[in-house]
C-alpha cells in the first residue's frame, strides 16, 4: 500500500536551487535511503516530507492523513537537565515506557539511566534520542543521519532493528553517509 507519493519536488533558497523535480513513492514496509553530498538538501527534503518546510514546487501526497510518524532530526529533542529515564517519561505513556526501558537496556544505557543527560557523551545522547523514536511504534520513521556518533555495535544493532521493522511493515525514510546493511530504495540527490 502506498503511504507517500511525492511529485516533482523542488526547493530553492534565495534563487539557488537545492534540488529539482524529485519524485518518489514510499509504500508500507519499504525503506527509502536518501543520499547525497553535504549541503545537497537531504535534511530539507526530510523536513518537506514531514510538512515542516514547504517545497518551492511540487506536492507530497499522504495516502493516510493520520499516518503516525516519528522523526529524529539533527537536534535530539532531549533535555540535558533530566535523566534518561525522565526524558523518556516525558514522552511515553505507561504502555510505551516498558518498551522504552527495554531499549535503554539493549543500547547499554541502563547504567546511566539516572544520571543527568547533559553529562552523557554525544553517542549516548544519540542513543537516547533513537530510543524515543524507535519505542514509539509509529507506522513510519523518518531519520536524519541516524548512524552518526554511534559505535560499531550500536550501528549493527540499529541496522538490524530497522531491517526487522521493515519486515513488520513499518516504513522508514532516512538520510545517511553510511551505507545501510539492509535492502531499501535509494534516492540520490545531486547538486
Amino acid at each position, binding site marked *: 500500500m502506498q503511504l507517500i507519493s511525492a511529485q516533482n519536488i523542488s526547493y530553492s533558497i534565495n534563487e539557488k536551487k537545492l534540488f529539482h523535480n524529485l519524485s518518489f513513492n514510499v509504500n508500507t514496509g519499504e525503506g527509502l535511503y536518501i543520499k547525497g553530498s553535504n549541503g545537497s538538501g537531504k535534511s530539507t527534503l526530510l523536513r518537506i516530507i514531514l510538512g*515542516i518546510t*514547504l517545497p518551492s514546487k511540487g506536492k507530497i501526497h499522504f495516502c493516510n492523513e493520520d499516518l503516525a510518524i516519528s*522523526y529524529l*532530526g*539533527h*537536534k535530539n*529533542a532531549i*533535555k540535558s537537565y*533530566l535523566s534518561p529515564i525522565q526524558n523518556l517519561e*516525558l514522552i511515553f505513556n505507561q504502555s510505551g515506557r516498558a518498551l522504552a526501558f527495554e531499549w535503554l537496556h539493549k543500547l547499554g544505557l541502563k547504567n546511566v539511566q539516572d544520571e543527568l543527560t547533559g553529562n552523557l557523551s554525544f553517542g549516548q545522547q544519540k542513543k537516547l534520542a533513537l530510543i524515543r523514536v524507535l519505542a514509539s511504534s509509529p507506522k513510519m520513521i523518518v531519520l536524519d543521519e541516524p548512524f552518526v556518533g554511534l559505535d560499531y555495535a550500536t550501528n549493527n544493532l540499529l541496522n538490524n532493528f530497522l531491517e526487522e521493522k521493515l519486515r513488520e511493515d513499518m516504513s522508514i525514510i532516512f538520510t545517511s553517509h553510511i551505507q545501510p546493511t539492509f535492502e531499501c530504495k535509494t534516492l540520490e540527490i545531486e547538486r
Partner: protein
Amino acid sequence: MLRLIRTESFKLSRKLKSWLGPQLILVLVLIAFPLSIDISQYDLDKFYFSIIVISLMMTAFISTEGMFEEDFEDGSLEQEFLLEQDFYKIVLSKMLIYVFFIGIPIALIGSLFLITNGADFDDLPKVFSILCLSNILLFNLFSFGNALSIDKGAMLGVLTSLPLALPVIILLGRAVRTIQYGEGFFSIIILMSGISLIVLAIMPIVISAALKTHID
C-alpha cells in the same frame, strides 16, 4: 492538553533557576529599594506600589526569556509541532504553567511586601488579584516578543515588546488608585479580567504562528 500541562510543569519544576531565579530577584529588588533611600521622608505605602509594579514588569520580562528558547534550540518544539495538530495548545499550556509557577508567586510576594510597607492588610486580596491579572497580561506580551526573535536570541524580541507593556502599567496605575481611594475597584478588576481572558484566548494563537515561521 493535560499531557502538555503535565509535561511543561514537570520540565519547569526541574529548572530551579527558571522559576526560583525571578522570584529571588523580585525579593532582592523589593528589599533593596527601601534600604537605598531615606524612607522617613516619604509615605512609603503611597509610592511603594509603583516600585512593585515596575519590579513585577521586569521580573515577568526576565521570566519569559527562556520560555520557548530551550525547546527551540534542542528540537523539542519541532517534535511537538509534528505531534500536536493544535500547536497553540503547547503555547497555552506553557503560559499557564509559567503563570502558575512564577506569575502567581511573584504577585503574592509583591502583595506581601506592600502590606509590610504600610498598606492596609484588608487590601491584600485586591492587590494580589490585580497583580495576578497583570502578570497574565505581561507574560503573554513578553512571550510574544520572545517568539518573534527566537532564532536571534529571545531577549531581543522581549525588548521590542516592552512598549506593549505600557498600557498594562497604565491600567495597573488606575487599579492602584481605585484601591487607595476605595472606589471603582470592581469595575477595574472586571475590565482587567476581561482583557486577560481575551489575551489568553488570542495570544497563544498569535505566538504559535510566530513560532511556526521559525520552525519552518
